[in-house]
């Protein structure tokens, strides 16, 4: 039985449907990321779980208890969850210690217990030296740690995170990303993590829920989502890709003058997705092309340090294909090149 489950959730704001018929199950202790472009309804979903948004229909259950349903609507303060906000939402008038201890005080624990648990968690997030500081005297990363500590110290049933890292700079973001995962592993709290940054989702989550326009596009492990996107949207949103429109017939894919062997496409597949770094590239030679080879002309190149980014125009295809090669694979603009695809590199998408 799932620990937390959302069934047929729908959230409307007036005429506008922000979340549509969303069903999702979370196992206990799982770390799930909600990933999607701005405005796709991630925050709305998260806030519905927290109880800040009242869904128009559907139900939310946690550990066998109904939080929201036709006859139920528990207010946020009774859902025993914690949340970490994009803006940190650290209370500026309280010290670090007071911020973290706030939730424990509400639970009317004894002084010693509060002191002990707060100190303990501050150590875990390496803030024990700064307990008496006010938030204004902390750096961005330290503030974010306070938010983490404050959310975790109450041992919530579910931890909700709404783009907790988007206000941090790149280095700090990477550091905090690991910190969050570390704390999750240490305390095993069921976590729902909202982000629009795919790297963040892939690095931290056990499963990724890709959302688009209020609907779920795909739910899978990071590797599956990347390697086997089901839809064009997922393919394009998770990592860079080349999307080639075409048709799948008789075990092969054809687009323009190109035809490639492709035995088993997904249902209603309309395009092929090929990652730029999965495309091999060599100089064209007169020898007969293999099944998985295409000829083209190199249009432009850019050096990105770890790779060269090439654009290759292929006769018959509307858009040039983007190809990413290691620094040693150097070609000149204008050269005739031969691209090599493998069946493993190609995915059919709806």
């Amino acid at each position, binding site marked *: 039985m799932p620990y937390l489950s959302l069934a047929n959730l729908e959230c409307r704001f007036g005429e506008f449907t922000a979340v549509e018929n969303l069903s999702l199950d979370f196992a206990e202790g799982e770390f799930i990321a909600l990933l999607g472009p701005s405005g796709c309804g991630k925050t709305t979903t998260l806030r519905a779980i*927290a*109880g*800040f948004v009242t869904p128009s229909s559907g139900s939310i259950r946690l550990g066998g208890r109904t939080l929201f349903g036709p006859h139920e609507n528990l*207010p*946020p*303060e*009774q*859902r*025993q*969850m*914690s*949340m970490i*906000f*994009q*803006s*940190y*939402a*650290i*209370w*500026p*008038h*309280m010290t670090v210690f007071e911020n973290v201890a*706030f*939730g424990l005080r*509400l*639970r009317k624990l004894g002084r010693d217990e509060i002191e002990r648990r707060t100190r303990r968690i501050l150590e875990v997030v390496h803030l024990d030296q700064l307990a008496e500081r*006010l*938030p*204004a*005297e902390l750096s961005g990363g330290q*503030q974010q740690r306070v*938010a983490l500590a*404050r*959310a975790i110290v*109450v041992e919530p049933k579910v931890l*909700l995170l*709404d*783009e907790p890292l*988007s*206000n941090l700079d790149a280095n700090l973001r990477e550091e905090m990303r690991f910190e969050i995962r570390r704390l999750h592993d240490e305390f095993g709290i069921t976590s729902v993590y909202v982000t629009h940054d795919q790297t963040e989702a892939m690095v931290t989550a056990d499963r990724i829920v890709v959302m688009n326009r209020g609907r779920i596009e795909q739910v899978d492990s990071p590797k599956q989502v990347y390697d086997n996107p089901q839809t064009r949207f997922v393919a394009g949103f998770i990592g860079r890709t080349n999307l080639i429109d075409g048709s799948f017939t008789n075990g092969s894919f054809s687009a323009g003058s190109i035809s490639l062997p492709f035995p088993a496409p997904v249902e209603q597949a309309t395009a092929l997705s090929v990652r730029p770094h999965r495309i091999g590239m060599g100089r064209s030679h007169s020898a007969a092309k293999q099944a998985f080879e295409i000829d083209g002309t190199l249009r432009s190149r850019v050096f990105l340090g770890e790779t060269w980014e090439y654009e290759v125009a292929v006769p018959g295809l509307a858009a040039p294909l983007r190809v990413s090669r290691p620094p040693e694979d150097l070609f000149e603009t204008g050269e005739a090149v031969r691209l090599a695809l493998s069946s493993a590199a190609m995915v059919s998408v709806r």
Partner: protein
Amino acid sequence: MTQTNSLAGLRRWRRLLDPSTLVLLVLASALILLVGLPLFKLLSLSVLGPNGLTHDPLMTAFGRLRHLEALGRSLYIGVAVAIISTMVGVPMAWLVSRSNMPGRNFVTLTVVATFVMPPYLGAVAWMLLGGPNAGWINRAWEFLGAETKLLNIYSMEGIIFLIALYSIPFNFIFARSALDVVSSELEDAASILGASRFVTTIKITLPMIWPAILGGAIIALLESITLFGTPALLGIPAGITVATTQLWQFFEFPPRLDAAAAYSMALIAVTVLLLWMQRWFLRRKSFTAMTGKGGERRPVDLGRWRWPAFAACMTVAAMAVFLPLIVLLQAAFAKAWSRGFSFSNLTLANFDYLLFKNSSAIGSIWNTFWFSAVAATAAVAIALIVAYAQARRLLPGTGLLQFLCMVPIAIPGIVLAVAFYATFAPPPFALYGTAAMLILAFMIRSLPVAFINAAATVKSLNPEMEDAVRILGGSRATVMRKVVVPLTKGGLIGSWLLVFIAATRELSTAIFLTGPKTKVMSIVMLDLSEEGNFEVLSALGVLLLATAWIVVWVGQRVAGRDFMLRRP
């Protein structure tokens, strides 16, 4: 080495000859003259006799128990007012800013109306409303069959009630400006941890805006201990003397300017002490809520309390604005206000008298508005220049200019008037009885507010916006004309309105500085109240309010409805 030094020196000189430098130098000397000199004069008057140092003025000022009691009474009133108006103004601000109470814009409008209503005019209206025997409220109370009086406005409680009523805008504005930038997430963070709505409000929301609450309370306190009109109108009949009416008494025969100066020192001391205490309270706390992206704000659902909350706000508005307005209108159009509402009692004679028969009334209307307009314009202009020069570090020494702009905040209006009188009335200035005297005093008095607003406005101006002009070939003057002024227009007009309205209601400062040709409406109204001529007084009050409202209405169109809020 020497060469670079002399070169640097040369460059510095060239910079000093810059026209903008000259403007700043002129400004600095003007401010020193207008702020520094009167303060110095006040000090010297209170400790210097004809034969050097003397303690005589101080003895006269503080040597009598009655004088000390008046001071104590003022403090008592101030503290009571601060507490009451905070307890009313802050919840109102919360309702308007954070809840889904109906009519929030309307409530804001009533607060603006409360601000526009001069406290002494409110006091006059309340004399008619709350007089112990003939006041409408008591008469209605009696009519309902009650034996006892409901209220007596001629009492300590009455004075406190009335001052508090008209101090609410300060608390409201401060609290609302702060609440408006508190993001909902800060409150959500508490609810998700298990805090109820109530606990969240008490433990999170209110403490977070504590500096603003304290700021509003302190302004309310300072305003009430320096208010002259209300205690004069209500206190004298009740035999209650406060610091300001006591100060006024030093000008009775034989006038003791020196004792008045010495007595003023006490008011300045109180003010400085309060401002210092405020700093001390807030010493370590930088409460600026760190709102990045995601600082979204959602109103709190009041549920079935929506309409009761609105009714509560309307009760306050009724006491501060509606009832007084009804009373004033009735009296303004009445032959005798005590005869109540009836057709036979209706007349336009009071307006006819004011507008066509009485030269001093029409003169005072004109004076009020042009003095206030000039003072507001000058204050806003000076404040803008100083704030801009400081924000862009155009010159060393702008810190001093800022200090001079802010010093008047510690000088109560009535004290400023005494100091101005002592400094500028005698030769060589001989400004007494001239328009300049009042305009300068109004201007100095409003400098702090204008400066705070201007600094906030300039701060909101991205300097890159100005750099963009210069790199494209525009001079500093072009920057000012094409970018700074157009972009700060809204903020400046808002601050102009604030200063302008404050000046139109100014009584404490005007009382010592008006001459026969420079009377302003507040003074004429005080004179009229002295004669018991409430009908004409109300008519004049109605004219003042009508004109002020037209100005506010026009200003709001340009500056936006929330011009009173300070937005960073």
